[in-house]
């Protein structure tokens, strides 16, 4: 629909607060023949149960609290196994508790949290497991491309190349040419995103990649679909990530430092073709700004030729943020949040997302990077003016390494993001990233020049989980209980 009525835009409510008390994950690799998915799931669960300072005496006591389970997995056909959730649930020894499989493409992890958190909010369960995974290494890349392309419209899109990246790249091209003006400066901004996220992954033992890259490396890498190059595109991974969500009473029984969690969802047509022009739904800080409203009015019409959302905005992300900011009392995301994990499937779509969630107005996304806001500390790597180097960014993004640096085990990604934010809010980044033992556990060596990526005094974080060309997007917001805005 392109015209809304009040029922469509109602601000979501939780009937009671929901908390995240623990998180765990496997390491992420392109291929993982040494272990079946079920084994990685158990390892993720064990980390969640045993390494989050839960006030329980071991796994069996913790399992005694779990009431229902929510499993996210995007692509059954890769694993040649339907009802994968039944297999995982069984291996975790959680049968006969109720469970359900959830799938929304790349947003699967976020959608799993959407359902799981609202089952606690409703009162149905006091304690739920939300777990996501993916395994795409059972077929060759050629077949894998076809399988993923079936997430597009099978009659009107898939046949055109059997390659999903192409359909995504059509959107990226339009954004690149119209808003980026095809300029080298814009190309450079894209490259900086890849450099930043790989640099963060360098300090993350869970990550699939472990090398730093430069903007030259990015701009010389092979073309995947012009203008997208190899380093502009996300990884494909095997791995599992999970979290435990609880009601307030149970959260404080199990943990001294639980965090509030809110999850919202938006969607859009599967085919980019079908996105009819409409007015931009305004986020709270945009509604409050006459300059932004005037600027948006000027974007319409013959002079720019641009339609909203067209091929350049992800309405699903805009809607998820629309609901989330009103639900949580976020007035201006850059001011009110301390860190974000965005779905950097491609460098260009990352920039598009900055605008959809209001980090910058539409058309001005690159400024989030160029201003230094996206960095924990603006690096001295020659790509920033001297006066910005060393400056603290207002809203660092993808400290995990994101999809460009850390992983994209599709069903797990949205949960990985929330796990990382949770550990940041608890001030426990170091435990999970900067101890030798965690690196050795995954057969790796901790680099001598590992960076400290803990955001000081992090109180609020946001994660965006996004499907393909934007058919589904969820927004997960975590807050320290003392930082939840009063209604």
């Amino acid at each position, binding site marked *: 629909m392109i015209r809304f009525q009040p029922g469509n835009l109602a601000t979501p409510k939780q009937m009671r607060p929901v908390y995240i008390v623990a998180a765990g994950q496997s390491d992420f690799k392109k291929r993982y023949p040494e272990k079946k998915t079920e084994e990685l799931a158990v390892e993720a669960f064990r980390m969640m149960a045993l390494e989050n300072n839960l006030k329980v005496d071991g796994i069996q006591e913790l399992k005694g609290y779990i009431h229902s389970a929510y499993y996210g997995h995007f692509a059954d056909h890769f694993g040649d196994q339907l009802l994968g959730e039944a297999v995982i649930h069984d291996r975790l020894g959680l049968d006969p508790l109720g469970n359900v499989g959830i799938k929304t493409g790349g947003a699967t992890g976020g959608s799993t949290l959407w359902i799981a958190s609202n089952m606690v909010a409703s009162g149905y369960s006091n304690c739920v497991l939300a777990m996501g995974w993916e395994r795409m290494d059972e077929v060759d890349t050629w*077949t894998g*491309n076809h399988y993923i392309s079936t997430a597009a419209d099978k009659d009107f899109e898939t046949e055109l190349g*059997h390659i999903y990246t192409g359909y995504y790249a*059509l959107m990226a091209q339009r954004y690149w040419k119209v808003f980026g003006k095809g300029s080298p400066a814009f190309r450079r901004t894209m490259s900086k995103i890849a450099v930043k996220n790989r640099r963060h992954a360098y300090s993350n033992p869970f990550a699939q990649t472990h090398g730093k890259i430069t903007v030259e490396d990015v701009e010389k890498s092979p073309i995947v679909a012009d203008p997208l190059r190899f380093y502009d595109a996300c990884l494909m991974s095997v791995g599992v990530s999970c979290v435990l969500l609880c009601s307030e009473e149970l959260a404080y029984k199990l943990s001294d430092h639980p965090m509030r969690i809110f999850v919202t969802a938006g969607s859009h047509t599967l085919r980019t*073709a079908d996105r*009819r022009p409409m007015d931009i739904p305004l986020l709270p800080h945009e509604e409050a700004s006459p300059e932004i409203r005037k600027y948006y009015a000027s974007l319409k019409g013959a002079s720019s030729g641009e339609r909203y959302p067209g091929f350049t905005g992800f309405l699903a992300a805009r809607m998820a943020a629309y609901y989330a900011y009103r639900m949580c009392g976020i007035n201006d995301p850059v001011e009110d949040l301390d860190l974000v994990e965005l779905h950097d499937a491609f460098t260009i779509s990352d920039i598009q997302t900055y605008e959809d969630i209001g980090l910058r107005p539409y058309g001005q996304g690159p400024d989030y990077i160029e201003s230094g806001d996206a960095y924990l500390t603006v690096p001295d790597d020659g790509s920033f003016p001297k006066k910005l180097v060393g400056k603290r960014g207002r809203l660092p993004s993808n400290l995990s390494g994101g999809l460009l640096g850390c992983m994209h085990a599709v069903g797990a990604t949205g949960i990985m993001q929330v796990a990382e934010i949770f550990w940041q809010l608890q001030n426990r980044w170091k435990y999970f990233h900067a101890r030798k033992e965690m690196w050795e556990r995954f057969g790796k060596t901790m680099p001598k020049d590992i960076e400290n990526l803990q955001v000081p005094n992090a109180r609020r974080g946001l994660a965006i989980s996004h499907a393909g060309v934007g058919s589904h997007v969820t927004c997960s917001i975590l807050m320290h209980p003392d930082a939840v805005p009063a209604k």
Partner: protein
Amino acid sequence: MPKHDFDFNNLRPDATVVRSLEPLVIEKPRAPIHVHTYGGETPFFRGLSQGKLLATKCVNKKCVPAGKEGHIFLPPRVYCPDCMEKTEWIDITELARRTARVHTHITVEHPGAFNRVPIPCELISVEIEGVSTIIMSQLKGAKAQIGMPIQPVFETEHPTFTILDLAWVPRKE
């Protein structure tokens, strides 16, 4: 002599192909055929084989906004997404011939399995005057550019009865 010390000289034709012994990794071949119907969208695909580009339109005057504003859907929809009444088919071949332009494009060089489009392929999205939607398709005989005027061509000799029976070529302005 121990059984299964993995002497591969005695393979039977139907033997499992082993990729690795530690861990044990095997191949599992699959080749299903899907029997797929176009159902109510049949006129569109049949139309391509006849050299016609068909779309659908909401004709419910009370429908907001598709019916009131005369939205034309390409790809066609059997039911209007706004009011859910049945749409009507309209022939937009001439409209496309006169007004179509490239909205965006990408060159596909790395397709996936089962692809039948010759590679490299100029994948495009097509704007047509008066049509609310922007259909994905392929450009032949030229490198695409945003704004390029184009016209439809149809595979009428040997139709595949897929979206591949529709392509576009540059239009002289």
